[in-house]
Each structure stands twice: as structure tokens, then as C-alpha cells.
């Protein structure tokens, strides 16, 4: 009897992280794309950093902030009696941190190639800024935003390093597919490790197939425009 908890936990962590980085990434992309050049360069480097840092560095930094003896972690423990580490949602911090740059960068790219005259046209027609954003800018940029979302989900699903540092490996609580594979390999349980590898391959392949289908659909729609 196989314990399916890591699958459910991985999907849940990746799903929640994707929702978080979807909004925060788009927000950051929107403002950075409009920022003056100097600020833009600095902000961009800062926001992209988690993409190029080793996951262990991200994990260490997260522990510096969220660990029960430090900063925010000590505060949460003191005031709310909640430990921010070693729970299933601790892994969301790690997954969101490493997935954020992917969402942010692809969304920013899409926003920068957006034809601003469309927004100006909307303004001359008296449309509100939020209407222009949601009904004009977002639909035009949907390709990049969709790609960023899918990439973020895939990256969050594959997070291992920072996750294992901040959430550890507690079967039935913080185990994810990635950490389960590592534990099974280290304890010489090759059969279990291989099963989870196949599950992971299946999910990743399915995600990529969905992306391809969406792209094709998009292209066909464009033909009629």
C-alpha cells in the first residue's frame, strides 16, 4: 500500500505558491516595468536573485528570518505560539521564494512588449486604470503570464533544497515528492524511490503537454483575428 501523502502535499504546496507568486510577480513586474532606469536595474537584480542563488542559500536565508530563534520566527512563536518551520506550509515559503523570479521575469517581459498606445487609447476613452489593466493589458499579455504561471508551478513542484532545510522530512506532514525520493534513495529503498520518480515524471510531462495544447489553441485563435 503506497502512501500518497507526498503527492497531495507537493501539489498543494506548488498550487498555493503559484497563486502567491502569480499576484506578487505580476504586481512587481508591472511596477518595475514602469520604473525609472536606475531603480529598475537595482530592483530587477534583487527580485531575480532567488533564481540564480543555490536553493541552500535561499533555505539558509529563510531560516535566518523564520527560524524559531530568530527574527520573525521568534516573534510568531512568542505572540501566536506558532512555529513557522517544520510544517507543510513552511515549504510554501521556500517554493514561493524560488518560483517568484520565474513569474516576475516572464510577466515583466510581456508587459514591456505591450504596446502602450493601446493603454493611451483606453485613457482617451475615459476608461479607469484598473479597467485598462484587467481588460486590455492582461489579455494582451496573457501568453507570457500563462507561461510564467506554468513555469512557476513546475519550479515550485520541483523545489528540494530550501524545502528540506525549512520543512525537513516528516512523513505524513512535510514530505513532498522531491524530499521523499531523496529519503528513499538514502535508505536504500530503490523501489519506492523509483515509484515517486515515475509519479513526478508523469506530472511534469502532463504539465508540459498542457502548455503545448494551450499554445496551439492560442495560435489557432490568432489566425481568426
Amino acid at each position: 500500500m503506497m502512501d500518497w501523502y507526498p503527492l497531495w502535499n507537493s501539489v498543494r504546496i506548488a498550487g498555493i505558491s503559484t497563486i502567491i507568486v502569480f499576484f506578487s510577480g505580476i504586481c512587481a513586474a508591472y511596477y518595475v516595468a514602469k520604473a525609472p532606469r536606475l531603480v529598475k536595474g537595482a530592483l530587477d537584480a534583487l527580485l531575480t536573485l532567488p533564481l540564480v542563488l543555490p536553493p541552500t542559500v535561499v533555505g539558509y536565508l529563510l531560516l535566518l528570518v523564520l527560524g524559531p530563534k530568530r527574527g520573525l520566527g521568534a516573534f510568531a512563536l512568542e505572540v501566536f505560539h506558532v512555529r513557522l518551520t517544520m510544517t507543510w506550509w513552511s515549504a510554501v515559503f521556500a517554493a514561493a521564494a524560488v518560483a517568484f523570479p520565474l513569474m516576475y521575469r516572464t510577466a515583466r517581459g510581456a508587459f514591456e512588449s505591450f504596446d502602450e498606445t493601446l493603454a493611451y487609447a483606453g485613457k482617451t476613452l475615459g476608461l479607469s486604470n484598473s479597467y485598462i489593466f484587467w481588460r486590455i493589458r492582461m489579455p494582451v499579455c496573457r501568453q507570457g503570464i500563462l507561461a510564467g504561471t506554468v513555469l512557476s508551478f513546475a519550479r515550485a513542484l520541483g523545489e528540494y533544497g530550501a524545502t528540506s532545510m525549512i520543512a525537513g522530512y516528516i512523513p505524513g506532514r512535510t514530505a513532498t515528492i522531491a524530499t521523499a525520493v531523496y529519503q528513499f534513495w538514502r535508505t536504500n529503498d530503490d523501489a519506492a524511490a523509483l515509484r515517486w520518480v515515475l509519479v513526478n515524471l508523469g506530472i511534469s510531462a502532463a504539465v508540459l503537454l498542457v502548455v503545448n495544447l494551450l499554445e496551439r489553441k492560442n495560435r489557432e485563435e490568432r489566425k481568426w483575428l
Partner: protein
Amino acid sequence: MKQVKSLLITAVLLVMVSCGGGDGELTVFAAASMQEALTEIGEAYMAERQDIRLVFHFDSSGTLQTQIEEGAVCDVFISAGQQQMERLDEQGMLLGGSGVNLLENQVVLATEAGAQSVNSFDALKCALEEGTVLLAMGNSGVPAGQYAQKILEYLGLDEAALATSGQISYGSNVKEVSTQISEGVVDCGIIYATDAKAAGLEIVDSAGEEMCGHVIYPASILEASTHRDEAMDFLSYLRSEAGRARLEAYGFAPFGDAPLA
């Protein structure tokens, strides 16, 4: 044709020289729990023997065993568990007659200094049964984890059930477990006395022989070693007066001169 041949020979020689790791370089694979002690001993040893350079690799003994089986270059292996050494012996990978029982350690229940989460193995049993504690231990491939499994069994606890209900955090070597205790992300953990000491943790209880048996660290030279004399010399240094004194300073108990059983 002749030129090609000599070119090939030069290339092969070059590769051999660069892979040999130079003369007098001794690679020591040792249990993670020996990191602090061996690093210090190694420095003292290298100061004495200018011609030998020690290269250490520390990880869980189970991982080291796998790496040696996969062909990693290693001259001396010091394991925290007998089982890992025996596996290598069965495969004929150890240099016959070179094995010794190097030292003895103790398995303890440790908490963060002054944490007062649990104060004994009995209290741990109660807390685990009530579901009010998060225990860290090594996984089943790590010697410290294997000792911890024996202790849980001795206490009459069902490890699988505790793991499923999310009360056990598994570390992939003993240092990971002690870091989790000192960072306060778990309530307590089962580690070695030496690791607790090195990490400044509080030892609240020690496991007796009846709970997990003797914790003996065997050491051996590998059959494939190309530095047997240097390896022999290092092992005898570890068992010399000076070596023992340093091991004792870290909380290890040097073992007698009995050869490996």
C-alpha cells in the same frame, strides 16, 4: 604511427598522475559525528607528518558506504556503525586484518539548552504517545537513526505509526539532526553524546546498553587504497596516546586494542 603511440602514452600518464591525487594524499571517509574531532586531530597529525596530506569527507556512514561501493577513491573508512563496515567486508572491499574497533560513543536524548521539552526517554515515550512532541532522528540508512529505531522499539513505540502521524523528522545524517535541535525547529532529538557536546545541546538522558547495544566505531583501510602505509600510520596515530587524548576531549571513549570482530 609511432608519434600517435607516444602521444597516447603521454596522455595516459598525464591522466594517471592527475587522478592519483599526488603523493602522500590520504583520503579519509568518516562518520559525520567525527567531524570536529577528526578535523582537529588531522591538523595536529599533518603538522607532525609534513609528507602526508589528509583529505576528509564527512557524511552519514550509510552514504559513505554507498559511495565507496560506487567506486569513490578512499583510503580509510571510519564508520559510526558496524553494519556499514560489515557490508563492505562482505564484498571484499576492506584490506584484510586492517580493521579495528576505534572508539565508543553514546546515544543520547538531547534538547536545546534549557528547553525543558522532555527530560528523559520515559518522558519522550509519554509525549510521543500523547502527540505533543516533535522528535528528530536519523533515517534508517544512518547509524544514529538505526540506534534510535532500536530505542523506540525498546520503549515499545510503533515508529511507523508515529512517522505517519507526523511526529518524527528524519535527518539524512546526524549533523542535520543536531542542527534541527539547536535551531529549535524540533523539540528534541536522538543523537550521539559527542554531537550534543559539539553543538552545545543539553543531554537529558543517555541510552543504556540494553536499549541500543554498544555504539562502536570501526575503522579500516580499503583494499583499493594506494597509500596503505600512510593509512596504517594514521590509524595507529588515532590509537596513540596523543590521538586518544584528543578523541577523549570531544567525548569519545577510545576502544581497547581488540581487533575487529
